[in-house]
């Protein structure tokens, strides 16, 4: 019983760690794409050259 409770407790921390990481990276990705589109639209056509 103690082992089971400990294991469940560990999994809660594991879920927290993965949740924070995936969530933060997802937010950063969305923010990058949205900001890129917003700024990209304002750039004059002749200046739109990435590479």
């Amino acid at each position, binding site marked *: 019983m103690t082992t089971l409770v*400990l*294991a469940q*407790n*560990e*999994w809660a*921390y*594991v879920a*927290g*760690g*993965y949740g*924070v*990481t*995936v969530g*933060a*990276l997802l937010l*950063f*990705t969305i923010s*990058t*794409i949205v*900001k*890129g*589109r917003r*700024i*990209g*639209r*304002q*750039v*004059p*056509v*002749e*200046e*739109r*050259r*990435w*590479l």
Partner: protein
Amino acid sequence: MTSTPTDPVGTHPTAGSGLFRMHPDGTASRGSRIYGILVLVGVIVFLAVALLFSPADTGSENRMGDMIRIMYVHVPVAVACYTAFLVTAVSSIAYLWKRTEGWDLLAVASAEIGVVFTALTLATGSIWGHIAWGTWWEWDARLTSTLVLLLLYLGYLALRGSIADPTVRARRAAVLGIVAFLNVPIVHFSVTWWRGLHQDATVSRLDPTIDGLKLFALVFGMVLSVALFVWFMIHRFRLHYAAARLEAVGFDRALAERRAEGRSGGTITPEGSIT
């Protein structure tokens, strides 16, 4: 060619071609999208390996149980933050040498990504520490030096935000980008230079303390974090490139307005030219 009625960028000669052809509105290109999909598939496979297929740690010298799964994200995000700050430092040196805008944009793009990965390193380390050490935070050498690293690069970004002149901003930021990187070796070797709660190296030694699927999950996570860093770099660099172009257009327009003011009766058209 991709084009829209109001924005025929896909037909413009400078819009790139093939894999590098840009999205009409944003920072994506066909190549970056294909790469992004590959990274996304990698993330899904990694989550399956790290959370489902790899066993709990019961045999190694540290015996972490299921908590070892946090290491599969904690170590990779730390690797990505080292990589990001190395790119910032190298780009800063290149900027001071070449004085070209591209190196400056590369440096700031990398620093931003590094800040995100450093914050994640501290967050996942804190979660790990709460169950392993019984505390969310300890003024241990590794934790403290990592916090200093985060503050240094937040300062780097704040410095950039506080200077309007692009040339002065790039030069001062480049100096700080090089100086701040001196803290990275301190962070890395802090576990061997000072006694603390943080464990020693697990993988970067000749006899790793884990093996099999556990080692695979950790190494896979590290490779994936660098792949993610590259994806972010592509998009953040393009984002800053676009912002720099906008800034330049605004500067040219402001300059034209000042010149127009200097002439009697001079007016400025919406396109920025003087009549």
